[in-house]
């Protein structure tokens, strides 16, 4: 068949196409997103929100418990301390996640 010479089959064409592109468009987008995760403001808000969320939650839970049983500063203070610890844990995890997603989806923990 004369066509065989100048027209590659669709599989060959697919292989050539795969070779030509450095990675699927989706992968490229993902890599770019992971890189850009480090816009300074975004990173700052990320860390602040992780720390703040745990602190606020634990403080509020402690305060609620205090209001219920009338031991006002006690559980709120305990809550704030534990919340701070949980916040640090959150920040630690968040930073690990960013590193892991940069190092191509490594399993964390």
């Amino acid at each position, binding site marked *: 068949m004369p066509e065989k010479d100048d027209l590659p089959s669709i599989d060959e064409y697919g292989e050539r196409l795969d070779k030509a592109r450095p990675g699927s468009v989706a992968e490229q987008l993902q890599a770019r997103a992971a890189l850009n995760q480090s816009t300074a*403001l975004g990173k700052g808000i990320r860390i602040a*929100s992780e720390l703040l969320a745990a602190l606020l939650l634990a403080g509020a839970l402690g305060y609620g418990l205090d209001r219920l049983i009338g031991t006002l500063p006690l559980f709120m203070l305990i809550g704030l301390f*534990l919340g701070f610890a949980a916040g640090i*844990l959150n920040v630690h995890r968040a930073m690990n996640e960013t590193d892991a997603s940069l190092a191509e989806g490594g399993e964390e923990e």
Partner: protein
Amino acid sequence: MSAVDHLFAATAFAGPMEQFEIVSIFPFGTENINLEFTNASLWMLISVLVASAFMFAATNKAQLVPGRMQSAAEMLYQFIANMLRDATGGEGMKFFPYIFTLFVFIFLCNLLGLLPTIPGVPHALHVFTPTSHIIVTFALAMVTFLLVIITGFYKQGFGFLKMFVPTVPLWLLPLITVIEVLSFLSRPISLSIRLFANMLAGHLILKLFAGFVVGLLAADGLFKAIAIIPLLGNVGVFMLEILVAFLQAYVFAMLSCIYLNDAVNEAHH
């Protein structure tokens, strides 16, 4: 009054926080339950309509060799599918519709909020960013959070609670478990604060810089020339905001995937 003075008066009247005001479009509901349709509802509705219109148009005449619209839709599909597969290892692919909807909705809410308002339209129709309100982002985060809890208990039973018990020395265990539980409970809060704070900060900066431009133009002589600096700054910030709109939607969806992973796969410590 010159044209610039008019402009200045108009902007000075609308402070940087004015863009976040909730305005009722038509009231609805009973005395105790307020269900009115506001500008926030309007822009969420617009986001949903735009997303639906795009997906319907893209898949309407699906072809083996995709056209432009279809390529864009397929790219989006692949992007979310890869993200979910990487995070949950195929086990969580059942949640693809949820993650896809979540990403597209947040992205469009963020992005459409960057459109310029048509001058002169009533306040209720000003361009509005629903994701700059913490109650919106918190509601979205709570959906993910409840989904994780329900799926976790459904799939693993009480074994789901094992994720709160890491391998540490026995005397540390009570303390660490409490901290792990607090860390888990704080997830929806940090998720919602992050998205809302990013959108709020971005829109505030844009508005403040725009205010500088108008303020400097209203001044005398040489000060008018300085107005170019905040104007150029605003162009830069605006481009960054487009990136942030995508990025924050990505981060929200990505973290939802990571949290869902805890629910569908047993935790490894």
